[in-house]
């Protein structure tokens, strides 16, 4: 048992659901007790989804506990098949069904016979993997299922497209700025003259997956989700993949050079020409993206040697660390990730760019580390933002887990050249905010701070008895002044001099009348 207040990565089934509901016309059925469908709320609220989240539960209740699910799961699958006609139904186990140890595969096999949809059981163990690992695994499972199906049916298409093309793997729902990153990646590839073959899972149709091998290479922008799929495709179809995250000027260039290398394997044969992206990289770096220029400007000079702490998922934490250290000259005192399963890769990436490395999924350790280091700015998740608030240190949010404000309506990619601009803004704003705060402190702060409470208790001929004072103190601070004023106004109007709790309520009612 572990005493836990907060966690960075969610339970396994969330990962599976995120992948399943990112595909179009795929429905997930959770084998779960009432109330475990909180995923629907998150998707509906955070992503502001207009459509009903294609996730339902086959409810595990007392009866199921006593007699087993029996026909229930099969019925629920076939019913959903009739109602929504999905291409694929993913039966998703939860922590509850992990312990029940029912033969879910058997239910899936039976349901598959009577439904038009394909039916699979998500192969994830709640107690061994977290949300991100499960998402990675589920994506691979779905891709494998459809490619093997295509192979059986003989309609696998492995001839390369005429023009260079790529699959983007790992864009999915509730991902940190994924929608914007996706748009930016499409633009980047288009600039390079590379066609998008498919983007999975977001917005993809499972029925089209058999065409995945037509792409010249796979691009996996985030380490957390998509690598397993890319590895599978490499092994089965010899498809090369690029997993360098195009975040920050340096890594975008790295990524583009790798792309160049990959497509130049085939281009001379198929197109009778070689691609050279160097002029593009140069033009973008120096003139289109503002980040390179920003790092030379006086603004950025002032950031030199300032201390920062970075924490987040492996992809974002590593990339941001490198950007801060190499591209902006900021001193990264500590960098860390909660992706414990990817520790080795992470250490290797950030080794020379920071003073220390912290691998943990315990937010109190992160908090302690921040308190000890006292950086000028933090770049982390929503949790670090709150730690920062408590310690009065500004924080830029760079990674999941996130809140609704991290699903902005405006265009805010982290990847690609526009991403570098966004990151530069984020970094610079975090530090200046900190500076301003600091200066205010030195010069005695804003002088308007206490005004509201001061003006209240001046010319009073009214007395508050102890009970009503107590009641007043229970009212949240930000409205207390208003309530007090209104009550006193009401009392004066009614020629009451002693304010009791009754008077307070009467005032409230009078006001609302």
């Amino acid at each position, binding site marked *: 048992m572990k*005493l836990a207040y907060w966690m960075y990565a969610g339970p396994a089934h969330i990962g599976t659901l995120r992948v399943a509901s990112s595909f179009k016309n795929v429905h997930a059925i959770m084998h779960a007790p009432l109330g475990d469908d*909180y995923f629907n709320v998150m998707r509906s609220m955070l992503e502001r989804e207009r459509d009903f989240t294609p996730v339902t*539960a086959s409810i595990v209740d007392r009866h199921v506990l006593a007699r087993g699910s029996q026909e229930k799961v099969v019925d629920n699958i076939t019913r959903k098949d009739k109602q929504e006609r999905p291409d694929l139904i993913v039966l998703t186990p939860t922590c509850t069904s992990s312990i029940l140890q029912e033969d879910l595969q058997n239910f899936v096999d039976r349901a598959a016979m009577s439904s038009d949809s394909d039916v699979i059981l998500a192969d994830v163990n709640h107690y061994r993997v977290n949300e991100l690992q499960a998402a990675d695994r589920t994506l691979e499972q779905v891709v494998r299922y459809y490619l093997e199906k295509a192979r059986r049916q003989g309609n696998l298409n492995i001839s390369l497209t005429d023009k260079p093309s790529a699959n983007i793997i790992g864009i999915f729902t509730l991902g940190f700025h994924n929608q914007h990153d996706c748009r930016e990646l499409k633009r980047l590839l288009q600039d390079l003259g590379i066609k998008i073959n498919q983007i999975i899972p977001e917005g993809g149709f499972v029925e089209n997956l058999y065409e995945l091998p037509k792409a010249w290479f796979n691009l996996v922008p985030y380490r957390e989700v998509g690598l397993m799929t890319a590895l599978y495709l490499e092994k089965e179809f010899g498809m090369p993949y690029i997993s360098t995250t195009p975040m920050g000027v340096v890594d975008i260039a790295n990524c583009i050079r790798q792309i160049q290398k990959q497509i130049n394997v085939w281009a001379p044969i198929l197109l009778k020409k070689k691609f050279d992206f160097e002029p593009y990289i140069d033009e973008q770096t120096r003139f289109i993206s503002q980040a390179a220029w920003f790092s030379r400007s006086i603004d950025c000079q002032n950031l030199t040697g300032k201390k920062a702490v970075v924490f987040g998922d492996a992809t974002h934490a590593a990339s941001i660390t490198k950007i801060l250290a190499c591209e902006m000259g900021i001193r990264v005192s500590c960098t860390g990730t909660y992706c414990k399963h990817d520790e080795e890769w992470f250490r290797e990436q950030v080794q020379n760019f920071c003073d220390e490395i912290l691998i943990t999924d315990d937010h109190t350790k992160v908090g302690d580390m921040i308190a000890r280091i006292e950086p000028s700015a933090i770049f982390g998740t929503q949790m670090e933002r709150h730690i920062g608030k408590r310690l009065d240190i500004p924080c830029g949010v760079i990674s999941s887990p996130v809140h609704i404000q991290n699903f902005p309506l405006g265009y805010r990619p982290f990847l690609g050249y526009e991403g570098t601009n966004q990151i530069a803004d984020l970094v610079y704003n975090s530090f200046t905010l900190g500076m301003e705060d600091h200066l205010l402190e030195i010069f005695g702060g804003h002088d308007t701070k206490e005004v509201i409470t001061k003006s209240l208790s001046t010319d009073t001929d009214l007395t508050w008895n102890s009970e009503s004072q107590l009641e007043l103190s229970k009212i949240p601070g930000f409205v207390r002044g208003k309530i007090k004023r209104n009550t006193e106004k009401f009392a004066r109007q009614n020629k009451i001099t002693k304010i009791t709790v009754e008077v307070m309520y009467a005032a409230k009612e009078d006001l609302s009348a």
Partner: protein
Amino acid sequence: MSIKISETLTFECETGNYHTFCPISCVAWLYQKIEDSFFLVVGTKTCGYFLQNALGVMIFAEPRYAMAELEEGDISAQLNDYQELKRLCVQIKKDRNPSVIIWIGTCTTEIIKMDLEGMAPKLETEIEIPIVVARANGLDYAFTQGEDTVLAAMAHRCPEQKVEIEKNQKIEDKSIQELFSFLPLKIKEKSSKSLNLKNQFPLVLFGSLPSTVASQLSLELKRQSIHVSGWLPAQRYTDLPTLGDKVYVCGVNPFLSRTATTLMRRRKCKLIGAPFPIGPDGTRAWIEKICSVFNIETQGLEEREQQVWESLKNYLNLVRGKSVFFMGDNLLEISLARFLIRCGMIVYEIGIPYMDKRYQAAELTLLQETCKKMCTPMPRIVEKPDNYNQIQRMRELQPDLAITGMAHANPLEARGINTKWSVEFTFAQIHGFTNAKDVLELVTRPLRRNNNLENLGWTNLIKTQKG
């Protein structure tokens, strides 16, 4: 699909495929209510993930609750439950020193049959902090019923009320002290204020309300010369009310049927079955029922109710004649529907997770009377609703307002149906005369908002309507 609206109340039961919060969410408001408590949810990552997301920012205010997260070793019994729980509880005692630790049992503890009730008394004596066990799991309960399980468990911990309290005051307190020897029970001086109040038997109200709302309700009863001798739960665990066979109890929320049963059967209290004090009509009926039990003639209640209705005029003009559809997820639905019908709305369907016809009897009668009085057809009451079917029905009925969970709110709005999140009714102050306005404030918000947007021509915001 034919939807007929009948003359009498009809009860239906569907598949139970509906969206609601897990009952462990009750820790969110209960830990704030009971100031000296600590809630330990014994469950998995799934439970923790739900809590941290559902409760939003509250998590960052050093909450007095935590997960005891079960790991693979706990599930396969490689680790000793008792030792593990002891380790965590000792740590909690050291860090927070609460007056009570409440263990919330979850689905997982049910399935692996962890004997929380058996372990608690043993550990309690060992670490010298009372441990209350409540099984608030998704296998058995929905959302607000979580509070019900906690209060039912707590009812067992209320001190015993002896006959002729005043005389035996000292003895009684001593016996309680012996019973809970580890518990620093405050010996409270009985105030002599109650002299001018008429009821001779103590009245205890049950249901967790914000302290302002609780004191508002107490005040309303005081106006009728009724003294409320205690609340379950009180602001502090150490202030739990005394119970016994002379004590009258009355519920303030519709989802407290287990607590009511426990109070009656185990603590021998007398239950006053009344409608719930939601809306001015409900509040008046609630007070009247309590007064009638104590043989007290009510004073000025009718005028008071009338006055509140007067003050609601502007809202009533907005809602009159509009139709509502309750999808059902928090058990407040019957009382809210009754109030809204009285406001002049038409209720098509009342979805509700669970319907205790005995505990809610008075409320159901009032609903029926209200329908007759307002000349509106009786709504259908759908227990364990099926959200998919409900959405089909809603497509046909096109209600002016759907009261629904957050999972459906945005998709329904995109399809041009006004929605109000049902959860807000659980967290807003909706009880008593004073707060009737707040209920209508919530109900009319989508209507008012959409009045403003009406002429912009973008009600329907989805590309293709399926089916």
